[in-house]
């Protein structure tokens, strides 16, 4: 959209077919991500929030284009356009061979630091692997960059020869961050990087990531379900519900003045360490999240929405500008006017 955008996600849909019956024909599909569009700017941190199963991780994996490896028959629609040095590259249209060239530009930090590091490789082997693939540095140069990366993420040089099982969760996540930084990428997708860690370690890792973001001038897509973490780190926040993007805008705007009824409910659940705000209204949603195999017609949130009207069942709401840099997918709150 603007010149400063790094990646434009346009009408991205991801659905996983469900096979059944004697002949294993496609009987249904899980629409994990349903027609979402947003933009990540250069050196911007975008937080992506939503409850479990709403498609956050799928968006992240679509952005690094590895969904096809995990589920070969996944159907991906829409466009994911990266702007690298004036080049516009649509990741959804690249073959796996063409894709390999751009792998170094987008990296990922995974949720579970216990599963994301190969238990058979030492820390230095793990960190130098992307360097081996994407650069032709000599052994000595690679060793030097591994050591400098270890220093940047707050590990000691003598950690390089150790195996992942000798580290704590926070240290492992630091190794994961160092690996993601190794190729100096433009975008790092952080898939709930701190939700598997202790609260005290979470703060350290979050601060480390913010420092790194400034130092390396890299964009983050920060996927999380912990809103206070997201508010702390993000420039912009995207809120997802059941595969749809319901609200997107500046972090402060969304955190303090959420417009969409789902965002409001989500934010009212954030504990606030302030006794004066004890009387704050809590919105408790009724019922369960519908299955993405059989989504409600119209607005997917209408079955649980406190503001739902008859008309919500008819049309799928689209993201509309409510204020500058604030988009909301709800026609009802639109009519409500700005509070």
């Amino acid at each position, binding site marked *: 959209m603007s010149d400063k955008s790094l990646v434009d996600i346009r009408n991205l849909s991801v659905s996983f077919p469900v096979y059944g019956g004697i002949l294993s024909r496609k009987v249904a599909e899980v629409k994990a991500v349903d027609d979402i569009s947003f933009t990540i700017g250069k050196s911007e941190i975008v937080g992506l929030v939503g409850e479990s199963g709403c498609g956050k991780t799928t968006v992240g*994996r679509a952005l*690094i284009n*590895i969904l096809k*490896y*995990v589920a*070969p*028959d996944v159907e991906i629609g829409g466009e994911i356009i990266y702007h690298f040095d004036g080049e516009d590259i649509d990741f959804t249209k690249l073959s796996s061979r063409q*894709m*390999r*060239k751009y*792998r*170094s530009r*987008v*990296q*990922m930090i*995974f*949720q*579970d630091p216990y*599963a*994301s*590091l*190969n*238990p*058979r490789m*030492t820390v230095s082997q793990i960190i130098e*692997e*992307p360097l081996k*693939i*994407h650069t032709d540095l000599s052994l000595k140069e690679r060793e030097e960059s591994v050591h400098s990366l270890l220093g940047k993420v707050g590990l000691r040089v003598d950690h390089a*020869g*150790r*195996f992942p*099982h*000798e580290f704590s969760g926070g240290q492992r996540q630091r190794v*994961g961050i160092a*690996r993601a930084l190794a*190729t100096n990428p433009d975008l790092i997708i952080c898939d709930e990087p701190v939700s598997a860690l202790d609260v005290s370690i979470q703060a350290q890792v979050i601060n480390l990531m913010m420092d790194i973001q400034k130092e390396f001038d890299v964009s983050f897509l920060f996927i999380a379900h912990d809103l206070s973490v997201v508010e702390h780190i993000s420039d912009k926040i995207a809120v997802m519900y059941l595969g749809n993007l319901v609200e997107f805008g500046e972090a402060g705007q969304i955190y303090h003045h959420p417009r969409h009824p789902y965002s409001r409910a989500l934010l009212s659940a954030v504990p606030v360490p302030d006794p004066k705000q004890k009387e704050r209204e809590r919105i408790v949603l009724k019922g369960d999240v519908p299955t993405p195999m059989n989504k409600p017609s119209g607005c997917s949130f209408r079955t649980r929405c406190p503001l739902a009207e008859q008309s919500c069942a008819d049309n799928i709401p689209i993201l509309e500008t409510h204020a500058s840099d604030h988009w909301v997918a709800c026609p009802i709150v639109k009519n409500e006017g700005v509070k």
Partner: protein
Amino acid sequence: MKFLKKQEDRHISILRKRWLKFKTLKRGYYSLITLSGLYGISFFLPMLINNRALVVQYEGEMYFPVFSGYIAGKTFGQDVPGEARYRVLKELFKMKNNGNWVLMPPYPYSPYEDITMEGNKMYEPPSTNHWLGTDNTGRDVFARLCYAFNISISFALILTVINYIFGILIGGSMGYFGGKFDLFFQRLIEIWSSLPMLFVIIIISSILKPSFLLLVGIYTMVNWIGMTYLMRAEFYREKAKDYVAAALSMGQSNFKVMFKHIFPNALVPVITYFPFSIVAGISALVGLDYLGFGLAPPTPSWGQMLDVGLQNVTKWWMVFSPVSAQFLTLLSIVFIGEGVREAFDPKVYSRLR
């Protein structure tokens, strides 16, 4: 973890830790040392157990019959048809004492020489000359036993390695790529494994003259399937883990992901299955030889020795030797397997101990 004696042992890979653990299990460790030592030595059997001399010094010239092969008896002034009789030659030179000499291997009998060679008798009981006696054609039982040991273990090893190559490649690809590839090979394996393989083997080996490589080929046809099941499951499980996604997202090729990332994490069945695969290989060869569909005679083999022994049960050494050789070999392999299993037992690494 008392097998980790030194402090620096803490920074070692899981596999190395397992090896150290394995070493503490004496039975398996010593079995492994003994077996691999004996197997290593058995490649030098032509220099240890042979009726050809190591060195012959004759009329100022040196001959090395073990390495050079056939040397006619006339070369040494021996009046025999065909090859020189080195044991006789040795006695002769000793008697004449004219500077000629013969250095024989420590056990100067070959597994192939029968009653047509000088001094060999049928059904000779164990003695200082023939440690385990001779069989129905006058061949030395001890020599045959030793040569058969090498053949049996080689057969089982080659068989296992080839099975592993096919099993790991096909099973791994099935698990890793999944989808239609997996489906196709699964059906193929189902059809293939439902063939009555013993009959197929018997039919093939009664048409073609069975040789070592043919038998390996036939058995590979049957046995690669077992490994694919294990590898498919391992790869299927491992590929869902995040470190594979991480490797893919940094642009690693499929082949590297499969064999650099997933395979080292799928080694447990490969290693634990290995001793049993060797046992199965040895038993398979013994079985075929016993039934007469195995290696062509006069090749020394335990199965054939067992067959002959059972036809002459009263000659106890002919039954006792192959049976106890097989028993000891298989027993020590099972000990190794037991040690491997123990070393791979994750309970020892849990924090409860």
